[in-house]
């Protein structure tokens, strides 16, 4: 077994020490700092990006909340305006209706009055005409001139009986 040849031990050990020390120095001073630098840089970058993303998402949350609030406010405002307008319209309508009714009432009263007056005039005219007619008829029939007052009383009595 060549591994047990003691004469071969010292060159192997010497070269192992030389090579391992060189390797250790190369790793510790060259390779490892380089790799860890890259890995840490990447870790930093990732955490920074994550922070940035978190910040942006918070910002967008905030903007969304603000927007919702503004929307709510606008909605309530619009509702208020509509209700106000409705109320105004209703009161206006009520007022015009009342005015119209009052107008109509006065007009109706006027009309009633003028009708009553017309009726009265017409009735008195009828009375006069009837008196005239009665006077003419009496004078034609009996050739007497009846006094106007007497005649009028007779017409009145007759018309009362008719009415």
């Amino acid at each position, binding site marked *: *077994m*060549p*591994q*047990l*040849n003691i*004469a*071969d*031990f*010292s*060159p*192997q*050990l*010497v*070269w*192992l*020490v030389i*090579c*391992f020390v*060189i*390797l*250790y120095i*190369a*790793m*510790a001073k*060259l*390779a*490892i700092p*380089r*790799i*860890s*630098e*890259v*890995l840490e*840089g*990447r870790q930093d*970058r990732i955490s920074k990006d994550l922070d940035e993303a978190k910040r942006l998402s918070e910002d967008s949350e905030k903007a969304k909340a603000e927007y919702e609030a503004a929307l709510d406010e606008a909605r309530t405002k619009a509702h208020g305006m509509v209700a106000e307008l409705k109320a105004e319209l209703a009161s206006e309508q009520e007022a015009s209706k009342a005015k119209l009714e009052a107008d109509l009432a006065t007009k109706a009263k006027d009309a009633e009055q003028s009708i009553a007056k017309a009726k009265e005039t017409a009735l008195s005219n009828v009375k006069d005409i009837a008196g005239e007619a009665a006077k003419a008829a009496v004078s034609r029939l009996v050739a007497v001139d009846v006094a106007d007052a007497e005649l009028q009383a007779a017409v009145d009595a007759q018309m009362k009986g008719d009415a």
Partner: protein
Amino acid sequence: MAGEQKLIDPMGQFEIKRFTNWEIAGVDVSFTNSSLMMVIVIALITLFLTFSMRGRSMVPGRMQSIAELSYEFIANMLKENVGPEGRKFFPFIFSVFMFVLISNLVGMIPYSFTVTSHIVVTFALALTVFITVTLVGIFRHGFKFLSLFAPSGVPFYLLIILVPIEVISYFVRPISLSVRLFANMVAGHALLKVFGGFVVGLGIWGGWLPLGFITALTGLEFLVAFLQAYVFAILSCLYLNDAINLHH
């Protein structure tokens, strides 16, 4: 006949071949095939990890992903097994893991050499881990570090048996750590060699069965190469956790 004998020599691949015959102060420091593979392995690791990261891209490419993945693999292993205090030992554990892993993987290339198939190499690595862990424990906890050998909440009479067992298991760690890696590598490569010899020996008629077996075994060996590097690294982490947190 002599050629065939050489083909089925499963241990020949582990031979150390000297390219130079250097000696400093009576110590043999010859540049061998093992030394060459070690140099290749550390060069591969360093070049790969630096070149794949040279873009330093935010979105990693394929090569950069592999580099980052290996980094995070060991970083998570340390974090889960040792905690935040293990961070200091990251370069050490990472170097050990990468060295064992790439040695194992490069050793899978035919005609190359597996550095980790030599007990002296794996033992030296395990001993480095062991000494580091022990020193960390002593510097951190001083005399209290010895409480690692006496689990709390155990009756006194049991401690008489338990303490020696704990002490032995502690000092056996470098041996078990190194032998596990070494034996896995040797067994896998020797088995591949043996069945490779069968393929040639049985020829065009009988060689297909061992060829199929060798193919499956190669896949398994890649798994073992990774698994043993993982086991070596995670056991180092667990030992480190013992020393730092004194949990038992």
